[in-house]
């Protein structure tokens, strides 16, 4: 069970990295500018995911203060 959980939690990072690499590949390898732009936006949002992924806490909520919630 722990192993499955560990694999699942790595999966998130692996997909994030895959998105990043795919975006990079599109930017480098495709000649068309529109495609480069879409690739760039993929790359950019995967960077967000790389920041957000490690910061997720199960059972916590968004960082907007409310007296009913304690974990952010």
């Amino acid at each position, binding site marked *: 069970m722990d192993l499955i959980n560990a694999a699942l939690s790595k999966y998130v990072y692996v997909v994030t990295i895959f998105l990043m690499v795919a975006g990079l590949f599109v930017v480098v390898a495709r000649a068309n500018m529109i495609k480069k732009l879409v690739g760039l936006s993929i790359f950019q949002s995967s960077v967000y995911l790389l920041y957000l992924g490690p910061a997720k806490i199960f059972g916590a*909520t*968004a960082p*907007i203060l409310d007296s009913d*919630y304690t974990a952010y």
Partner: protein
Amino acid sequence: MFALAAGAIIVAMALVVGRAVRGPTVFDRALAGNSVGMLAILLLAVMGFLTGRPEFLDIGLVYGLLNLIGTLAVLRFFRRGDLAPDEPEQES
């Protein structure tokens, strides 16, 4: 019950994304894109109830209001005449 709904929405999303990836015409993709946006809104709402904090419907509202723009932009693009059907064999 909300967990079940979330599961159903995600399965539906997977199916619709499959339609968007497969095409075959650009209009099919636009339709699928519209539906994915709609399912995303529903998923956000259900997620809110699932995690017990349903205040964040603003994102769903944004999608609801702005989804139309993306679809109309695609359609208007074709109105100007440069249609590129995906598959040449789609000619009927």
